[in-house]
């Protein structure tokens, strides 16, 4: 199966100690590797205000993971684990590979067009001079 890219964000209780968050992240990394996936990037955004109240909390500790996966079951397992963990109050997984593919296509398309565009003005002056001398030569001959 083709490799898929996901974004996984989860929010912990603001009172969670750092070590516990590190522990959660390491278990997630471990399950990812067990299910034929890989955690590419881990970002701890730290405690920030949430836009609305979740689990009676106004703030939450955000952790962001970018991961590769070859099996759909990995996401199921990761989400099950997050659901079970008490410190985690909210999580979200977003599949991104198709959007990234689309983005790359758009970039490629634009680059292609950008490469084509300058040729037109450049080609016109280059094409213009040759007829001049030949016409003169014909007139002289």
């Amino acid at each position, binding site marked *: 199966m083709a490799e898929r890219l996901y*974004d996984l*964000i989860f929010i912990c209780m603001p009172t969670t100690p750092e070590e516990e968050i590190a522990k959660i992240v390491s278990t997630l990394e471990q399950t990812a590797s067990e299910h034929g996936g890989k955690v590419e990037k881990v970002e701890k955004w730290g405690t920030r205000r*949430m*836009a*609305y109240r979740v689990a009676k909390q106004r703030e*939450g500790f955000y952790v962001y993971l970018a991961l590769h996966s070859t099996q759909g079951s990995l996401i199921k397992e990761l989400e099950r684990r997050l659901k079970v963990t008490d410190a985690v109050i*909210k999580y*979200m997984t*977003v599949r991104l590979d198709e959007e990234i593919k689309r*983005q790359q296509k758009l970039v490629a398309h634009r680059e292609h067009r950008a490469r084509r565009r300058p040729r037109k003005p450049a080609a016109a002056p280059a094409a213009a001079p040759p007829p001049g001398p030949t016409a003169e030569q014909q007139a002289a001959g």
Partner: protein
Amino acid sequence: MSEQQPIPRPPAPSGGPREGRPSGPGGGPRRGKRQYFRKKKVCRFCVEKVDFIDYKKVEMLQPFVQERGKILPRRMTGTCSKHQRWLGLAVKRARNIALLPFATEL
């Protein structure tokens, strides 16, 4: 939500100049009755050549959302239809993970 109803029009945030009616495409000075010149709005994402609107960048999405959390319509922000579609998706994702509000409670 019911308390919210009496407020007829929440003030438009920094999204762009508000007009009474959506301006037609182009809208050149073909009619003599024109009262004031309306600047043509350009899609901000097209100008910056954004190919993917990231739901994680809240500060990027914020200008396109009202204070109460509503997504601003295209006629106010001037966003092109393609980017408005992506923007809607990004805002909805951001709402899901509490980066943006569904509706601000007072």
